[in-house]
């Protein structure tokens, strides 16, 4: 029952139709939220007492680093669905999330290291979160090159899903171990369990920028998945009608 439902709902064709309808709404809403949030964060919030104006990078850096990890989680979910129910759509999604994940991780890495110059006095510290972000970046690239090295797409999907799942077990372990190894990075600004350590007037734009950035990344994932679906299913009749 469930299997049949998933297969019907998750046919690439219906997915593309739904997503095409939603795309422009998501894009314009999240773009305006993001622009407002960035404007708010960069011009309207007060200067930080300790870090000065450089703390404004938080509105650009934190959403990217949050998304870069969430995307991996998303890939892991999609991989599990693919391996359990053999839903092709989720295999396509895994492949199309990977480059977007690499892009956001790259943003997080570069923005973080620029932020480090005024704050820590160095652009590269052997710090736990920098290292685990770098590793995440390399893992994304490894996933892409693993998939691209196979000419048989079905096999490539399977191996990619396995590696993503193994990696998803490992990512928290990597984070824990590297944190244990050394820590210099300021502790996370927002945690679920504790009261936020930053002022609400700085926090609201942060949330807004996180939401806006997430929406934009979702748009990118939609575009990327559209490309991969069309590419992989190009011999099917519905694709010719669709295009």
């Amino acid at each position, binding site marked *: 029952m469930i299997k049949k439902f998933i297969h019907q709902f998750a046919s690439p064709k219906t997915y593309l139709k739904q997503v095409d309808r939603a795309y422009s709404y998501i894009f314009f809403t999240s773009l305006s939220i993001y622009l407002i949030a*960035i404007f708010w964060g*960069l*011009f*309207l*919030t*007060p*200067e930080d*007492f300790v*870090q*000065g*104006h*450089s703390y*404004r*990078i938080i509105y*650009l*850096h934190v959403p*990217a680093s949050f998304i870069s990890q969430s995307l991996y989680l998303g890939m892991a979910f999609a991989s599990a669905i693919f391996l359990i129910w053999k839903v092709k759509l989720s295999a396509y999604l895994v492949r199309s999330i990977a480059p*977007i994940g690499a*892009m956001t991780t*790259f*943003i997080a890495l*570069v*923005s973080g290291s*620029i*932020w480090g*110059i*005024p704050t820590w006095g160095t652009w590269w510290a052997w710090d736990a979160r920098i290292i685990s972000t770098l590793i995440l970046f390399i893992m994304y690239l490894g996933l892409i090159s693993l998939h691209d090295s196979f000419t048989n797409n079905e096999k490539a999907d399977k191996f990619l899903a396995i590696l993503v799942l193994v990696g998803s077990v490992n990512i928290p372990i990597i984070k824990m171990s590297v944190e244990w190894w050394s820590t210099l990075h300021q502790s996370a600004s927002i945690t679920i369990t504790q009261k936020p350590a930053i002022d609400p*007037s700085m926090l609201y734009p942060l949330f807004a920028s996180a939401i806006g950035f997430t929406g*934009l990344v979702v*748009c*990118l994932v939609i*575009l*990327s998945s*559209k*490309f991969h679906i*069309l*590419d992989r299913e*190009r011999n099917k009749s519905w*694709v*010719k009608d669709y*295009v």
Partner: protein
Amino acid sequence: MFNFAFSSMSEAILMESQNGQNHGIYVWSVFLIVFGALILTFIIYKNKIRNLSKKIK
């Protein structure tokens, strides 16, 4: 909460902090990188889809 932190455009670009350093260069370079990466990725994928559609047709 909604007061401008800077009084002029040039101040906003320089972003001189209380410790006397200009942080504008860091903030704005990150800004450019983030927006550049986003726009570039959007363009790349739009292009890819367009080229592929042509090929399929």
